[in-house]
C-alpha cells in the first residue's frame, strides 16, 4: 500500500475554509445592510442600494461556495449533507407556517414573529441532523 496522503481530507478542509470565508463575508455584508443605514451613513439612498447589491453578490458567492463544497464531499458525506438539508427544509416549512399562524391566531402576542427567528431554527436543525447523520454511519 502506498503512503500517498489522503487528498480527500485536505480537499474537504480547504472546501470548509472556503465555505466559512464566503459565509463570513455574507454575514458582514448583512450586518452592514442592517446597521449601516442608521449607524454609519445616515440613510443615504445610494449607500443603501450599494449595501443591498453587496449583500446579494456575497449571498450568491456563498451559495456557489456551498454547491462547490457539496460536490467536493465524498458520497457518504454528500448523503449526510443532503439528508440534513432535506430535514432542515421540511422543519423550516412546517415551523415557519405554524409560527406565523400562532401570531395570527393570537396564541403568541407578546412579540411579533420575525424571519430571523427561523434562521436559528434552520441552523439548529441542520447542525443536529448532520450530527445524527454522522452518528448513524459511525
Amino acid at each position, binding site marked *: *500500500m*502506498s503512503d500517498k496522503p489522503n487528498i*480527500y481530507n485536505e480537499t474537504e478542509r480547504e472546501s470548509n475554509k472556503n465555505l466559512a470565508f464566503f459565509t463570513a463575508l455574507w454575514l458582514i455584508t448583512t450586518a452592514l445592510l442592517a446597521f449601516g443605514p442608521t449607524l454609519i451613513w445616515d440613510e443615504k439612498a445610494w449607500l443603501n442600494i450599494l449595501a443591498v447589491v453587496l449583500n446579494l453578490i456575497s449571498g450568491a458567492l456563498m451559495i456557489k461556495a456551498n454547491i462547490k463544497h457539496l460536490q467536493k464531499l*465524498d*458520497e*457518504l*458525506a454528500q*448523503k449526510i449533507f443532503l439528508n440534513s438539508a432535506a430535514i432542515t427544509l421540511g422543519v423550516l416549512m412546517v415551523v415557519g407556517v405554524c409560527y406565523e399562524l400562532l401570531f395570527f391566531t393570537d396564541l403568541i402576542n407578546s412579540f411579533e414573529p420575525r424571519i430571523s427567528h427561523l434562521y436559528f431554527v434552520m441552523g439548529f436543525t441542520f447542525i443536529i441532523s448532520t450530527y445524527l447523520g*454522522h452518528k448513524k454511519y*459511525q
Partner: protein
Amino acid sequence: MKNRIKVLRAERDWTQADLANELQVSRQTINAIEKGKFDPSLPLAFKLSILFKTSIEAIFQYES
C-alpha cells in the same frame, strides 16, 4: 448488502485509513461500507474491485 471488504483488507494487512487513502474517500465511509450501513456507488464499487483485483460479485453479496 453484505461485503467482504474487511476480510480482503485484512488479507493485505491494510488499515481502513490505507483503503480510504487509495480510494480518496474518508475513513468513515470505508467503515460504514464495511459494516453494511452504507452501500457504495457503482464507480466506488468498481474502484474497490480494481484495487482488490477481484470481481464486484466477489466483494458484494446482495441480500433481498
